């Protein structure tokens, strides 16, 4: 007797449909799984056998062969437990096979027959809805999977419950909406740093990458966190896209689904696979987990040169492509990049109070550790210096704008940029701005890329000022945010 249950396996952020075919025939009692299963799938045999017994079913004392089709595709993960169990039950007549015609099943089984969540529930939900199938899966995932519009989800607490027929589709539950700026740092929590706050506003408006240079303890991390709150609200499509990555990585996607932009700050000792993704089976890296949010690279020169080099292309393309022997996988990676570095190994080079103890040659060598190509992608550079303690303790002044106020300006600037005529960057330059740009480019030895960067930032500043053309003042302000390497 044979039966087929539909399920899926993860390839990148997609769930690719897989058919679980079970064949029960007379012969020596064996339980075999074929069709490129990995170790976790092989182990399903023991879990399925125990789960069926404890749930009051009978495991056939016969030759049971399970095939996972299409056979050439590598299958991994524990999500095959439930479909394999269902296929065996259908093949032995303990469940009605026809009931599963329009259903895709996924879930891990406990030895007691309970159904558990697996990584990538959202991907499975998306795949099921695309195929026009209902998804049968663990009860605990019921909230998350409903991020997929028009998905019919049938939650199953334990495999025992399947005996009473397939559970009916459950009511849609929507994830809790997060307040717009939570849970990051509010700009008004950071005293002083007016120029840095302005830089963040510009970065949020124009999608620019930011580099902070400053001594330890100046507030670089806190300011980077504040950027999350300045960015506009996530659209439904963006939420789903970002949540998918988190789901596939086995993380809770509900904060992203609730509208909180992710903030990821990988340590500088992270491996390349940890940063851009990789491994077997491949998992998304930090840059993909930060998709739609902020990727903060603290202590930039301490990252290995190979890691920085690996980050460069994803930052440019907004996606990571991992090419492996059995195919290429693409993870989204559109991030607002904030990098921070000390000006020198001791951190105090150029500090007004504390003397730097590094020899001058070392300072230059330290700064050159960040390769030119990545450095070139930092549109805005700013010093973040320690705030005078007197200012820190005086509660009334220098608090400056709140995140909500600054965000208003960001939203207005984005709307303005959207609406304004898309003429060439050069053509929107006021003659005065053009001559200032040319003059300063010669004077400050700016590279071609440096000029382009300057122009992009000046355009965003003009958008913040709701100005159709880029004026002299906009270029002048942008000049103060150029990098220290020219």
């Amino acid at each position: 007797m044979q039966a087929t249950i539909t399920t899926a396996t993860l390839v990148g952020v997609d769930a690719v449909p897989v058919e679980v075919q079970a064949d029960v025939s007379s012969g020596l009692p064996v339980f075999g799984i074929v069709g490129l299963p990995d170790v976790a799938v092989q182990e399903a045999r023991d879990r399925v056998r125990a789960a069926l017994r404890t749930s009051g079913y009978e495991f056939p004392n016969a030759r049971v062969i399970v095939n996972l089709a299409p056979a050439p595709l590598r299958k991994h993960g524990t999500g095959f437990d439930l479909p394999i169990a269902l296929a065996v039950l259908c093949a032995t007549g303990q469940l009605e096979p026809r009931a599963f015609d329009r259903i895709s099943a996924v879930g891990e089984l406990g030895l007691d027959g309970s159904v558990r969540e697996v990584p990538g529930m959202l991907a499975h939900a998306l795949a099921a809805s695309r195929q026009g199938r209902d998804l049968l899966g663990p009860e605990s995932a019921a909230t998350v999977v409903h991020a997929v519009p028009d998905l019919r989800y049938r939650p199953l607490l334990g495999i025992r419950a399947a005996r009473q027929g397939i559970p009916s589709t459950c009511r849609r539950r929507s994830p809790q909406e997060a307040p717009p700026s939570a849970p990051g740092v509010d700009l008004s929590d950071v005293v002083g740093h007016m120029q840095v706050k302005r830089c963040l506003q510009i970065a949020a408006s124009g999608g620019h990458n930011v580099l902070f240079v400053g001594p330890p303890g100046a507030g670089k991390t806190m300011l980077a966190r504040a950027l999350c709150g300045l960015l506009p609200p996530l659209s439904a499509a963006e939420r789903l896209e970002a949540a998918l990555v988190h789901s596939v990585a086995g993380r809770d996607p509900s904060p992203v689904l609730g509208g909180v932009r992710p903030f990821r700050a990988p340590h500088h000792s992270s491996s390349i696979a940890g940063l851009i993704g990789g491994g077997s089976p491949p998992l998304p890296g930090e840059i993909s987990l930060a998709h739609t949010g902020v990727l903060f690279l603290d202590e930039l020169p301490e990252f290995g040169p190979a890691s920085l080099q690996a980050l460069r292309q994803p930052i440019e393309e907004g996606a990571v492509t991992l090419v492996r022997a059995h195919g290429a996988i693409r993870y989204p990676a559109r991030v607002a990049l904030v990098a921070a570095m000390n000006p020198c190994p001791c951190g105090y080079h150029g500090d007004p109070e504390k003397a730097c103890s590094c020899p001058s040659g070392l300072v230059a060598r330290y700064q050159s550790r960040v390769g030119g190509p990545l450095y070139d992608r930092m549109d805005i550079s700013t010093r973040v210096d320690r705030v005078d303690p007197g200012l820190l303790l005086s509660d009334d002044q220098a608090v400056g704008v709140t995140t909500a106020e600054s965000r208003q300006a960001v939203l207005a600037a984005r709307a303005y940029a959207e609406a304004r005529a898309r003429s060439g960057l050069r053509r929107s330059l006021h003659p005065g701005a053009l001559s200032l740009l040319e003059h300063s480019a010669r004077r400050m030895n700016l590279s071609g890329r440096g000029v382009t960067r300057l122009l992009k930032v000046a355009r965003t500043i003009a958008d913040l000022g709701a100005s159709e053309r880029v004026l002299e003042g906009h270029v002048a302000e942008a000049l103060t945010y150029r990098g220290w390497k020219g």
Partner: protein
Amino acid sequence: MKHADRFVLSLGSAEYPAQLAETPDPPKFLYGIGDPGALVPGLAVVGARKATPYGIRCTRLFAGWAAASGVTVLSGAAMGCDREAHFAALEAEGPTVAVLGCGADIDYPRRSSDVLNRIRSRYAVVSECPFGQQPQRFAFVRRNRIIAGLSSAVLVVEAGLPSGTFSTADAALDAGRDVFAVPGSIFSAESRGSNRLVRQGALAICDVSELAGALGIDCSAIGRTQESGGTVMRALTADPMRPDDLARALGIDIVQAATTLGALEARGVIARYPDGRYGVA
């Protein structure tokens, strides 16, 4: 490097610079490359390696003027003020002599190698260390006394606290040389050392004509160095500031401050320091 250019002067020989011989602790041998005739009493111009644009500008002004007036500019070829002093002298087509803390044939620091080669070919690079001697820490403090000894006066352009520049000033006093200092802002950490020298009695040099007077050179044709400008310019002339501090001090918003700073910097009248402050260029 051609060996023919090398010379060794021993203490007591006729070629040995007389002004150096009369100091309390003259080196037994002076190894050099170039023209031993360049070792005439001159003006030592020394300052911090981590010089601010202010320090660089002062160095350029005073060293350039001295060299153009025919006064030999002595310095140590280190990064920052020292290198700038040699550079300014060479640009003014005036004599300059470098005193190293390693062999006179060694390019140290590496980035000064072009300046050193130009000095070797026209004037002289000297050291008390034998040829080929690699740089050693203590040697640099020792060489400061040679800089002071070869000069007739020492000008400290910019020095923080503590600073190696002080050992040059001390050696100058021991050798009975004049010590001049260029004062800086009282708020600038980079000028604390030179301001202290002024308090301790060094002659404050605020103008080329004052330096000329101190060196006994006629200075009738020299202009003034002070400048004027708007509020931002005046504030920055008094004290280099970060954009935040400038905005707070003048009561303007940060966008306006940044815009003004960018425009002034593009005109070249102010410059950005490595620490993010802006000051007069």
